[in-house]
């Protein structure tokens, strides 16, 4: 079997795990929960195999196309973290890893219903955004030993932030009592947009499947809905989305009822949100900002250039710093501070996807 097959298996496992985790929320049967965990672990193992196989393939590719180097250097240069596709795959791997650690450590399964959709969203995004899955040669700027550490540690940080996002949203759902509450409106919009994008990408996915392989190189992201060439479809998408947001807002309290029945307490969710940020923040600072700056200095002669990625990662850093200060210096607890944690992850998405796909700059490698 090829690495690609294992990636497909892991992707399908995470999608299935998402469905089973959500079923677990509704059915509250331990057997269902155990099944969800098993599927996730299975997906994680196949993804690990796939990642190692891809590393092997790109190692062979490096050996075939480059001047001879030592074994360790060749391994470092062929680490599968070189473009948007590989880094998104790696993000999913980190996300599931951190989720599984939390699931085993805190004995809570229900968080999976909020973390696996994030993994699924990322995987479907890879297929519809037309990112190249080819093993590409490493451009000279990326040929540095910092690549592996900078990307590896940043992504562990991003994944920890992803888990805090999941826990934060669940926490907000549990904390809000009325539909007039601003925090309630906030989470219902976030959850609504999340589901809308997931569904919209589901449509994209079918149009990608129906397309000829040579056409898949282009970006299909939201092309079947919001970015459709037909004005009618765009209008219907917007109307449906607004209607859906209204439904989530109107019936969101039901979601709270479902969640209250599980072994979730507001304290535990607060703890997980904080813990993930407490792990993610130092990782992101050291791996993303510090190592990035040192690398930039040795490659470009400037440790900070205010390029869009650097600026956005600084914004992310400030939002999470604000979260930590609000919690410790100002003593905020509950809704207000959790909203900051959720906003933090939105800036992570801007830092990662927004900057790579929409803006050009020194970090534009990822868009190829």
């Amino acid at each position, binding site marked *: 079997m090829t690495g690609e097959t294992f990636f497909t298996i892991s992707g399908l496992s995470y999608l299935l795990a998402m469905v089973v985790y959500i079923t677990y929320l509704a059915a509250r049967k331990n057997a269902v929960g155990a099944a969800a965990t098993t599927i996730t672990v299975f997906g994680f193992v196949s993804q690990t195999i796939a990642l190692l196989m891809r590393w092997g393939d790109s190692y062979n590719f490096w050996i075939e196309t480059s001047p001879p180097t030592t074994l360790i250097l060749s391994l470092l240069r062929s680490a599968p973290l070189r473009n948007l596709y590989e880094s998104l795959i790696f993000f999913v791997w980190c996300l599931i890893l951190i989720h599984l650690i939390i699931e085993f450590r805190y004995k809570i399964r229900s968080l999976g219903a909020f973390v696996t959709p994030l993994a699924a969203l990322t995987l479907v995004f890879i297929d519809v955004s037309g990112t190249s899955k080819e093993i590409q040669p490493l451009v*000279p700027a990326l040929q540095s030993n910092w690549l592996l550490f900078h990307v590896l540690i940043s992504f562990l940080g991003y994944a920890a932030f992803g888990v805090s996002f999941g826990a934060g949203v669940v926490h907000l759902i549990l904390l809000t009592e009325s539909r007039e509450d601003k925090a309630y409106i906030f989470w219902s919009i976030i959850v609504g947009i999340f589901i809308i994008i997931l569904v919209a990408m589901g449509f994209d996915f079918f149009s990608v499947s129906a397309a000829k392989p040579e056409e898949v190189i282009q970006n299909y992201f939201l092309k079947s809905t919001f970015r459709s060439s037909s004005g009618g479809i765009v209008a219907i998408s917007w109307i449906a989305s607004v209607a859906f947001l209204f439904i989530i807002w109107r019936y969101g309290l039901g979601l709270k009822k479902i969640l209250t029945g599980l072994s979730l307490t507001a304290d535990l969710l607060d703890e997980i949100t904080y813990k993930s940020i407490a792990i993610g923040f130092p990782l992101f600072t050291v791996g993303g900002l510090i190592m990035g700056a040192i690398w930039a200095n040795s490659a470009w002669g400037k440790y900070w250039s205010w390029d869009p990625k650097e600026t956005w990662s600084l914004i992310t850093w400030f939002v999470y710093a604000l979260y930590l200060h609000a919690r410790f210096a100002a003593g905020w607890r509950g809704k207000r501070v959790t909203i900051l944690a959720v906003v933090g992850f939105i800036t992570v998405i801007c830092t990662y996807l927004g900057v790579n796909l929409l803006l050009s700059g020194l970090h534009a490698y990822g868009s190829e």
Partner: protein
Amino acid sequence: MYHSWWFITLLILICVNLIICSLERLPKTLKLINTPMKPAGETVIKTLPVRKELKVKANLKAVKDEFFNSLAASGFHVSESTEGDSAELYSQKGKYSRLGLYIVHLSILLIFTGAIIGARFGFGGFLNLPEGETSDVAYTGGGKTIPLGFTIKCNWYNTDYYRGSDMPQEFQSELVVIEGGREVLKKVIEVNNPLTYKGITFYQSSYGMIPNAAGVFILKVTPVRGTEHVLNVQIGDTFEMPGTGLKGTINGFSPALTRDPTTGNLITYSDKLINPAVLIQFSEAGKQSFTGWILKRYPETGVLPQGHKVEFFDYWGVEYTGLQVSRDPGVWLIYLASIIMSIGLYIAFFMSNKKIWVRISPDVSGGKSFVKISVGGSASKNRLSYEKEVERIIAKATGAIEERSKK
């Protein structure tokens, strides 16, 4: 925008805010660190975030000794007090971890200081240096000339490509530092591997073609059963394969030669040296024997029918190397601050001030006498993991107490 007055003002305001807030909190933290621990008493222990209570049938002194050992093994420096029949052990560790956040704040101020030093005393410029040429200066984006204080020379520039594709694998230049007419330093720089001399660093940043330059073909020729000779020739020149009488004339050049897939003709597809090829006409004893293209990236094209080899080593003198030139006397401070920040973050997030109180008192229930042990603790962070640590301390002590009672 990032160099405008209002943005700089914002950065300064952040610094001022950081200093004032840290100074405001620091005395409280120092007071927390310096206040010695006191015995807590039964009622206070019951209110602590981590609390455990158990009863054992053992001698009170034995219980006290074993808890003392267990706490010491966990890194606590234990104090003890007695009150009537009861004894209390109390201790803390990691109290200086409360300073972690100040270390992080300090590192941020150091980064700002480093940035100011760099902006005030450093410079960032560029220099396009043709192959074989020298320069004593670099240029800023604003067109200002900056004297280097020494001479820099580019021996050659070269782009390596991945085999079988036109993707650049590496950009390289050989630079020489000349001071007082003497060569003091020579280095091949590439992206991610610059040259630094007297605080000025030269980074490989771009490259390009010199307009209308006539280059030199550097050929390495090796006759069958002969040694390699290096020849420098120009277009139109004729050279001889040493000791064979075979002559070659340079008849043409293409910076990027390829075969058009539809027509099958040879064409030049770029004006950059992507796939340089030289056309050589060979003749033996005055008679033209054959003409062929020799490609730099494909040495096998240079093996002649007789077995002689002609390697197209370089087309020199037509490219320039684009160097980023900078001096930043503040960068060591940035690096130092980065290390301090990493340490500070580790202390701030992964270490905590842990306190523990163990009260040991005699207790009678159901006509039997016991020793009652109340354990209370608090941690500045990570309460759940501290709770597990307290459980381990208790388990270790009670295990040892049981061992004792068996003897």
